[in-house]
Each structure stands twice: as C-alpha cells, then as structure tokens.
C-alpha cells in the first residue's frame, strides 16, 4: 500500500496563475510515474477548471482559488474550489459548446475535464461558489520502480 499524500493551496484568481497551477498539480502527480499523455490530460483539465474560476466565478473581481490535491494508491484527486458567483444550471453549463463568455471562448471546459479525467463532479451554490472534483487513475506500468 502506498502512503497517502496531499497538499493544499490558496491563490489569487489571476490569469497569469493558470500556468503555475497546472504545473504544480502535474508535478505533484509525477510521483505516480504518469505517461506524457496522462500528464497532458491532468494539466489540461486543471487549466480548464482554473480558467472557469477566473472567467466565470470571479468575473469582475480577483477572488481566491482553493486547490486540494491528494494521491491515494494510484489515483490523483484534484479539488478546485471558489467562493464566486456559482452556477445556476450545472447541466447546461456542462453542455459542450455552451458558453456565456463570448465568441473567443469555445464552451468546452467541462467537456475537456470529462474526457481527459476519469471522474468529474461539480457542486455549486449560486452566490456561494463552485467545487469541481476530478480524479485520474494512473496506470501502473510493468517495470516501474517508482517509490510513492
């Protein structure tokens, strides 16, 4: 059995932090010896969730984004939470190509999270904020000697 490992952080909802946050989570997950594709999947899903906080949760203000990451056995769990405006209709928000952010946004954020991760759950209360929980199972490959 591998020991559980976790970290938490709180950061301002500034767009320049998008790159930092996806890199931090991917680096934390690297102990599971993921493939290049798995790392890309994690970075992309985190980038989408963080961008949602910046664009939608705190549209006219800088708020805090709370990240909690946990590794249990070969599973990475990433929880990204904000205390922003919340989502009125989660099912609608998760529809591919649906966006409220104008022509330059593709409306694919949740679709990417669902396609690139193994589990996605969205909980939201209008006026209170949103929590996105995502899990990725990293395949244990034969010959991998990584200590976790």
């Amino acid at each position, binding site marked *: 059995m591998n020991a559980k490992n976790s970290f938490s952080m709180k950061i301002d909802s500034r767009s320049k932090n998008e790159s930092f946050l996806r890199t931090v989570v991917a680096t934390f997950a690297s102990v599971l010896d993921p493939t290049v594709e798995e790392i890309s999947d994690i970075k*992309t899903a985190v980038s*989408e969730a963080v*961008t949602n906080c910046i664009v939608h949760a705190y549209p006219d203000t800088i708020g805090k984004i709370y990240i909690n990451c946990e590794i249990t056995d070969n599973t990475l769990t990433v929880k990204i939470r904000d205390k922003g405006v919340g989502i009125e209709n989660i099912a609608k928000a998760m529809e591919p190509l649906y966006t409220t952010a104008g*022509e330059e*946004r*593709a409306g*694919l954020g949740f679709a990417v999270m669902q396609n690139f991760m193994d589990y996605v759950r969205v909980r939201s209360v209008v006026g209170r904020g949103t929590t996105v929980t995502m899990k990725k199972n990293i395949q244990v490959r034969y010959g991998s000697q990584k200590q976790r």
Partner: protein
Amino acid sequence: MSVEIKVKDEVLTGYLSGEIDHHSASGLRTAIDRAVEVNMPSLVILDFERVSFMDSSGIGLIMGRYKNLSKRGATLNITGTSPYLYKMMRLSGIERIVKIENKEKKQ
C-alpha cells in the same frame, strides 16, 4: 507564448510557440488579427508545431479567427498538431469547419 508571422503572396502563416491558455490567448488573437488586417491574405495557416501546451482557449482562438476570416472571404488551415493537440481538436469538432494538415505527426 508568441506568434511569428510570415507572409508570402496571399498566404499568411502564423508560427505559434509555447503554451496557449486563457492568459496567453488574447495577445495571440491581437497579433494575428492585426497581421490579417495589414496583409489581407486569402489563406491563413496557423502552425502549432512548436506549441507545448494548449487547453480549450486554443480552440476558442481558432474559432474566433475562423469567424473573422470567413467574413473577409479568406480560408483558415491548421498544421503541425501533435497527437496530444489533435486530441483536443478532435474533441471540439473543429475539423468540421477548419482543415487540419499533418495531424498524424508524432511528438
């Protein structure tokens, strides 16, 4: 993140490099739109070969440029997508409106 623009005859090629996310997309958008405004190409090729990361902001960037160029009667093509970038493009269904060349290219 940067874009290098090269123009030959009526073809404008934008060589993108680095990471494309919501933060970097707006600068790329401005640079490409300005180059299109000045050079008035009939074909724009966006080359993704040197792009190391892209989230759905890259799809938004392509869709926005496609709409902009369509209004001018110009065509947009995409090239140099790695299997990883192509995964994102396939998910978005963007191939229905934009031609993607060299998509089988290995990383």
